[in-house]
């Protein structure tokens, strides 16, 4: 009796101790998770606050004009002063010099980011949606769909520098030697398309129109590299979105006599908001991509309507200039560009989440 009673109470205390330990573990886990969540939010908030504070001098100097000015000149200019009539100002037999302070405007890089990202989508979306449909509807599940999905996802893990090197040594020369001359000989003579291959530049006060030198390191090359880099993310999310389409939806359409093409189309229509979300996430990735783009886009802070002219994105501008930006205003202007990029990406991401989330809720409701 004695033995059994002691063993019972022993057992009980061990159990309660274990329970206490478990409660403690629960609490610790809960608090750990909570504080991790808060920490992530704090990190984002501090990122915004720090960037905004650092961008303040630039904002004060240029105001909203920062977004509409195309002038990006980090150096001071010392030049002969001219009066309103455009004549040199001469006092006491000497030309009066004026010092023009540095000026910063983000329009060319905002333009470069938007155009390169949208062009990248134009190239990447058909490819990604095609691949996603193939993975979901065509490929035999085990033999092809599995390995192919893995490969597509693996593309996302390749460092962006590797894409850049490939772009610089393979893609750019290919564009320069083969693709662009071919496009020029085909499209160049077409009336109304001359702007693709000619540019108007102001040279020392004179406006000159000349052929754009085809270098292969231009907006087109940058967009193509971006397209390749965002195919994995768009494909992977589109595949998941398409998988979430209820079977009844597809079977129903086939029962109605739809052809394979028609049932695929109805599947795409059904999940259109989710697919739009996938595309938006691709867009956000394209807008923020830095290293590879810097290597192939030509890095010229100018707006040119032609995809064969060198360009610059917000991210490539930062990659190029941040290390040696010694003046406060230059640094601040760069950080303001970073802030604009952050806010833009944030909005695209929110929109994307909203679209993807909406489609999944839609799919769940249909079940």
């Amino acid at each position, binding site marked *: 009796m004695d033995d059994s009673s002691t063993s019972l109470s022993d057992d009980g205390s061990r159990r309660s101790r274990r329970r206490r330990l478990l409660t403690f573990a629960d609490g610790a886990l809960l608090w750990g998770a909570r504080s991790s969540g808060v920490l992530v939010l704090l990190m984002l908030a501090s990122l915004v606050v720090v960037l905004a504070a650092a961008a303040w001098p630039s904002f004060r100097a240029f105001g909203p004009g920062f977004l509409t000015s195309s002038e990006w000149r980090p150096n001071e*200019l010392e*030049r002969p002063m001219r009066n309103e009539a455009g004549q040199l100002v001469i006092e006491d037999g000497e030309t009066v010099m004026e010092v023009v302070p540095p000026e910063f405007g983000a329009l060319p890089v905002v333009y470069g980011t938007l155009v390169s990202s949208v062009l990248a989508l134009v190239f990447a979306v058909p490819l990604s949606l095609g691949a996603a449909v193939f993975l979901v509807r065509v490929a035999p599940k085990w033999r092809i769909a599995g390995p192919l999905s893995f490969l597509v996802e693996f593309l996302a893990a390749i460092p962006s520098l590797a894409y850049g090197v490939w772009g610089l040594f393979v893609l750019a020369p290919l564009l320069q030697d083969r693709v662009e001359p071919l496009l020029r000989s085909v499209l160049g003579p077409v009336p109304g398309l001359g702007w693709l291959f000619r540019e108007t530049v102001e*040279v020392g006060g004179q406006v000159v129109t000349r052929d754009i030198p085809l270098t292969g*390191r231009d907006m087109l090359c940058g967009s193509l590299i971006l397209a390749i880099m965002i195919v994995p993310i768009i494909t992977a999310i589109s595949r998941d979105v398409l998988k979430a389409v209820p079977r009844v939806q597809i079977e129903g359409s086939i029962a109605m006599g739809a052809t394979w093409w028609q049932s695929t189309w109805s599947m795409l229509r059904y999940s259109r908001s989710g697919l739009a979300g996938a595309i938006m996430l691709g867009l956000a990735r394209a807008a923020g991509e830095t290293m590879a783009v810097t290597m192939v886009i030509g890095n010229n802070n100018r707006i040119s309507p032609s995809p064969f002219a060198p360009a610059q994105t917000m991210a490539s501008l930062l990659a190029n200039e941040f290390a040696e*930006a*010694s003046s406060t205003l230059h640094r601040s202007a760069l950080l303001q560009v970073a802030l604009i990029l952050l806010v833009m990406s944030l909005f695209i991401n929110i929109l994307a989440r909203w679209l993807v989330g909406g489609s999944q809720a839609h799919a769940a409701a249909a079940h």
Partner: protein
Amino acid sequence: MKNLVAPLALTLLSAASIAAPSADVRLQGAGATFPNPLYQRWVSEFQKTNPTVKIDYQSIGSGGGIKAITEKTVHFAGSDAPLNKKELTALGETNVVQIPTCAGAVVPAYNLPDVKEAINFTGEILADIYAGKISKWNDARIAEVNPGVKLPEMAITPAWRSDGSGTTYVFTNFLATQSEAFKGSIGAGKQVQWPMGQGGKGNEGVAAAVQGTTGAVGYIELNYALANKISFGAVRNKAGKFIKASNESVSAAGAGAAASLQGSVLAANIWNQPGDNAYPIASFTYMIFHKDINTAKNADEAKALLDFLTWCINDGQKVAATMDYAPLDPAVKAKVEEALKTASFKAK
């Protein structure tokens, strides 16, 4: 618990005893990327004879180096451009030593596969190419300084550094002395707004742009061009001679500036120097530190810093020449030695 503490204490003790006897002196430097390969080599050579001194130079860019020395987070900074007034004031004007350590040059590289001869350039021609006023290789002005060379009728695509750099600083400053129009429209600085052409990040970016585009011209550092066997042209100097950049012609450019170097803060622009053999697009690269060396924790650190810098401008110069960095001319070296003597350790 007791059982745990004892071995832990032992481990700590033994760790301490390993660290204790070799009282290593650690020096931290940061700054310019241009001399980085040379500085790394200097550090490893210096450490062969001074094994207790550990030196770490990080090539974060001249701007970053100046920021670091101003905030006293490093012992010395490397910079491709001498300190400007604002930077000097921030550092404390009377408490700075700035010395040139070697000289570099910027060369015009180009891509003309069918031209075997080295092309001659003048400052005015380069300025007008970069401003877009000369757009073809067979332009009369290029032909004039290249008699006998069959120049193709091909568009010139200028390539430039898209990142801020001392290379751009030297190149634009030289062009500004050659063309008033260039000075007034593009100007000079570590980074300027180029009206046309394509930008490459780093020497490698410009070199890739030049090598990848037939008819391109780009400015790159001499030692990068030599190390990568990139062909480049000669440039007309102040004396009217066409000079190809080499260690000798760059050192000669530095020699002309020796007279203007005075005091502790040595600075001289050595582009466009007189002298028949002086290459015109040259510049010094500098090391900067506090005159009272109060970035050092103790006298040992301060002594190690001065030892290292003295070694750099003496034995280090031979190493520099083998790596295609132009050594200091003896007249310049004498001024640097005087400047080094003005520094001494004063504890905080």
